[in-house]
């Protein structure tokens, strides 16, 4: 009983449990790939419309150097935009939570800005910052920024008032309350912001690569489409999905390592 308990609590144990829960989705994916392969063959669909999984796999193998070469800027720039969103977003979320002035003056602006479809800003960024990396990173940033702000803010604001009263009864300073109560309380929210944010950052980079058309998997997708090379297009999509999954997975692992307590409500 006790051993079972420790197993449940240990980080490795919980990661194994998490991995186990992936068994069914993996089986389902394989089944879908088989159906896809068979359907394309039976219905005689053209390779340009829908290449079968084996052809896509062959394209990945054939173009592995090209795919690798374009994966690097997409990943690096995506992470740069995401990193910027984490730093600025968390910083602003904290300011909003701690300062009434920021809450009253700035929060409505942030919400209003959220209504703007950020992808539509891409052409403007090109006018301002040119076709280079700056435009792409900034687009990823503006898209990933909002979930970081809102989740950090909500996590701090969601602190139990009784907890704050308890801390005050022990003469805790404002700084102690933030560091030892509000911030840890916000961590589960921040992690759900990170998970959304990293996905959004990749979306931003891809859209920016479509528009700036210099390099990256987004560029490769547009290039393949222009050449009517659907297998390469899908190969790039697969690689892109794998990158997205790895980044998301890295955050999940980090979350399991840091948040070891029972969060209670599911976020």
């Amino acid at each position, binding site marked *: 009983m006790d051993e079972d308990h420790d197993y449940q609590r240990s980080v490795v144990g919980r990661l194994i449990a998490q991995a186990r829960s992936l068994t069914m989705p993996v089986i389902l994916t394989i089944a879908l790939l088989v159906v896809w392969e068979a359907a394309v063959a039976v219905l005689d669909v053209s390779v340009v419309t829908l290449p079968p999984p084996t052809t896509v796999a062959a394209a990945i193998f054939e173009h592995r150097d090209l795919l690798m070469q374009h994966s690097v800027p997409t990943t690096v720039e995506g992470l740069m935009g995401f990193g910027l969103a984490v730093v600025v977003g968390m910083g602003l979320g904290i300011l909003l939570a701690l300062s009434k002035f920021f809450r009253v003056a700035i929060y409505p602006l942030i919400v209003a800005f959220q209504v703007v479809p950020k992808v539509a800003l891409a052409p403007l960024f090109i006018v301002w910052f040119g076709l280079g990396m700056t435009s792409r990173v900034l687009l990823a940033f503006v898209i990933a920024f909002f979930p970081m702000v809102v989740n950090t803010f909500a996590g701090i604001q969601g602190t139990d008032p009784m907890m704050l009263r308890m801390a005050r009864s*022990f*003469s805790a300073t404002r700084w102690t309350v933030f560091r030892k109560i509000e911030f840890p309380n916000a961590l589960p929210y921040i992690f759900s912001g990170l998970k959304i944010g990293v996905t959004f950052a990749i979306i931003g980079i891809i859209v920016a690569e479509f528009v700036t058309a210099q390099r990256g998997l987004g560029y490769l997708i547009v290039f393949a489409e222009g050449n009517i090379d659907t297998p390469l297009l899908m190969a790039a999509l697969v690689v892109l999905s794998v990158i997205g999954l790895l980044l998301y997975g890295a955050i999940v692992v980090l979350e399991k390592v840091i948040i070891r307590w029972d969060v209670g409500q599911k976020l």
Partner: protein
Amino acid sequence: MRGGKSRDAPPQYMGLAHVRIIDVRKTYKTRRASIDAISSVTMQVARGEFVSILGPSGCGKSTLLMAVAGLLPVTEGRVEIDGEVVTGPRRDTGVVFQSPVLMPWRSIFKNVMFPIEALGLPVREYEARAYELLKLTGLDRFHDNYPTELSGGMQQRVSICRALIHNPSLLLMDEPFSALDALTRETMNQELLRIWEEFQKTVLFVTHSIREAVFLSDRVFVMSRRPAVISKVVDVTLPRPRALEIDETPEFNAYVSDLRRAIEG
């Protein structure tokens, strides 16, 4: 040995109450009107005394306790601890709230140590005391566990340890056992007395349970319904240490009926 403790207090404390509540009035302002939560309360608690404030739900007894804790300002009058007017939370006070309010991200041990960090005291020097308190409350096996892994009664024990870690002279308890089942509550009452006898703290205990007040206290202050005043003070001279069976004695039950009449009166 502890019987009549308030009476054989050391001479230097004679006449000097540990806690003095003087003409305290508390008014809440709502949009429509101002509501008197406490109309006028005056009472004194001697050093080392166990005093309960007994009253119906919502009578303002918790408000009074929070004023003593320095967590709520009073509208009129004043609270003095050791002759000093309370203006905010004090380092020599420990509060136990109605719910345990433990931090779910901290181990039991780290929860108990929180006041030491908040008060800026040397953490190292208090670690042994934290272990000692956890041992005293039967929680020494759980110091590395997280709060959600403990039962409600165990969690409230942790919060009592937390209130005692910085060695306060005054322990303020706001209906700490009201969320617990009757059996756990009795155990907790007994344990609280054991801790009190061990540490010699002054305890101000808010409850709406008559039997709990009689079992624990040297004196019971009865608070009337809102706007609250102290309607009766009862000296409980039952011998100490008290065992749970004491509630079957006629003396115990005489106190209970007396207090019940005072509340209903």
